[in-house]
């Protein structure tokens, strides 16, 4: 009994030092040397100023010249991640989706006259799991491209070329392109067509 207690205490102390300090600090050192960009949060700058992380979505709704991210249940706060956690038969979820749909149609409809509710992709009106989804679907981007092109006074084809260049997003191409990275796309728009 006492022997086991002594072994247990020794084990917890030695192993906490090895696995709780040496191991994570060694991995941190390795990561900072080999992949400093990723290890520090894939940060991006514009004109030398830190503007975000390509892995973390941002709220662009105040600026019509930008592509907008998906709805977020956590105000796109990466320091307090959360999903809505509303159930599949939730009446309040249904109300939220209805009002997002109305807002989406109101925002994009004037620039894309053929747009109907049936054409709105699910990702545009549902909130993400992380609350900071950095991506939108290609269909969502194709609709928003009309507004971005009109507000910036650009040909739609030019905007769509940039969308295509930022498609693939985070899937790594292993299972086909699935998403458009919104922050990277908006930064590329700014770079190509100085606002």
């Amino acid at each position, binding site marked *: 009994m006492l022997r086991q207690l002594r072994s247990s205490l020794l084990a*917890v102390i030695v192993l906490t030092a090895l696995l709780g300090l040496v191991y994570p600090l060694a991995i941190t050192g390795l990561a900072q040397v080999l992949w400093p960009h990723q*290890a520090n949060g894939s940060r991006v700058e514009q004109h030398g100023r830190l503007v975000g992380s390509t892995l973390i979505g941002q709220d662009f709704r105040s600026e019509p010249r930008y592509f907008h991210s998906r709805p977020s249940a956590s105000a796109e706060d990466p320091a307090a991640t959360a999903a809505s956690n509303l159930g*599949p*038969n939730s009446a309040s979820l249904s109300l939220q989706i209805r009002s997002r749909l109305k807002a989406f149609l109101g925002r994009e409809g004037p620039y894309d006259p053929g747009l109907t509710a049936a054409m709105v992709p699910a990702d545009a009106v549902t909130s993400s799991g*992380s609350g900071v989804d950095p991506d939108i679907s290609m269909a969502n981007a194709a609709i928003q491209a009309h507004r971005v092109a009109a507000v910036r006074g650009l040909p739609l084809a030019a905007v769509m070329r940039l969308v295509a260049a930022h498609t693939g997003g985070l899937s790594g191409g292993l299972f086909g392109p699935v998403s458009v990275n919104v922050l990277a796309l908006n930064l590329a728009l700014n770079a190509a067509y100085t606002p």
Partner: protein
Amino acid sequence: MTASGWLQVGLLLVVLTAITPLLGGYIHRVFSGERVLLTRLLGPVERRLSALLAGPEPAAQEWKGYAGSVLMFSAVCWLALFLILRTQSIQPLNPQGFRSAPWDLSFNTASSFVSNTGWQFYGGERTLSNFAQMAGIAVQGFLSGAVGIAAGVAIARGFANRAGKELGNFWVDLVRALLYVLLPLSIVGSAFLVSQGAIQTLAGDVHLSTLAGGSQTLALGPAASQKAVMLLGSNGGGFFAVNSAMPFEDPTGLANFLEMLMMLAIPAALTATYGRIVGNRRQGWVLYAVMLVMFLGAAAVAYPAESRPSPAMRAAGVHGVNMEGKDQRLQVSDSTLMAVAGTTTGNGSTDTALDSFTGLGGSVPMANIMTGEVIFGAVGSGLYGMLLMVLLAVFVAGLMVGRTPEYLGKRIEAREIKLVTIGAIAVPLIVLFMTAWAISARYGMRSIFNAGPQGFSETLYAYTSQVNNNGSAFGGYVGFLQPHAPGNTGASGVTFADLAGGAAMLVGRFLPMLAALAVAGSLSGKRTIAAGEGTMRTDTGVFAVLLLATIAIVALLTFVPSLMLGPLVQALTPRLF
């Protein structure tokens, strides 16, 4: 549903099947004390650590001694983690200046990580310092995983032993599991995750102003090193509240694929290790085949179910797939497959909000856990949980043909069957009792977030997940109230949920483990009988079907009524609540 979604399911299982005998054989060599590639490097460390903990000449222990070491070590681990959580405010590496966690939340969290559950009532990025994450939470990712692997191997030895009652030395097994299995795989895994975009730094928050002029705070920390061991060791807790949905933990589709593989690798490999320990590899493959079939079944139900709109979406006039609670890079395919991988294994890591799954889709992760975590299960405990079901299947078959049941040439008698009953049947009963208690008491209802049947589902999921040591959740269920204020100020635990869940996790971990160790002790050294004409073989497809049926019948009889009250009723109605 897409072709590439199904392709990914197939690819995952092909890769898993290919590495199972390789990793399983490696783990067998490690625990037999044979030389492996890493022995040259780690041998001296292993010898010194073993000598320190078990003495210069480690003696093999019988089941009671082994169980005693497990319990004593786990108790000290629990106390260490509890103290770290309670004294967080005076520790180093706390750039955000977080206060210590409340006592009831600390009870739940310490019980969670020591029982290899990974259940989290707290949100990591707003509650825990870098020190508590590294030296508290992540260390238990290693230690509780290693305890599971050691116990699984020791129990397999007991099943195999032809003579003698010794199952091995716990301290020697613990050190081997850590140094040769979990540590090297975690180093490779965390390096890979960082290369994909997972964060690994000791810095605190980074404040910035966004492109559209808003403000944003990036919470940074040593996430990758913790994530890797949480996946490999079946604990599964996230560095961030939303676990792998957070891109800093699971940045790409490729990373997501590897994360699923990391969750499945060791639990699957241990079936091959088992086959080698008992000297008949087919015995291991039978267990693997049953697990694989159940995994495929789960994916085949969940993926189509999530590829449709939920009733809430339909009522709002939106069609397409159920994207509520799912991230775009992961879509329905990766989100659903990881939910299946995270609940068939005892891991509980997910990259999506299960609470927002459709009724049918959400019943799949719950049903996976309700099998008693034997579809791969957690490292070690998945193996011995499955072995208890094997004995049950052998016993049922023996009753049907009127012969004394045998397994591996050993008679299965009243003592073993009593212990199997305790190990395999007690857990589901505890789940049902705790759910009934929590749902019928006002203090239990406080934790519920959604209205209607979903509120019941949240409660059922919470206790199913905690008692079976999974750790995934219908995330609306709360046990910790944190106001939007810096440094945990004013945060408080929901005492009933924290204490009931914490106690349930400990019982759910150690009761079946002790029962399985006792069975192994009872079988160890039992006289073997040569196989005759009437012997039922347990390394055939017929037995695999019987085993599958036994697991399914036990789970269905126990849980169908409660599943009907929660997720399934929502699958059957378009009504909103």
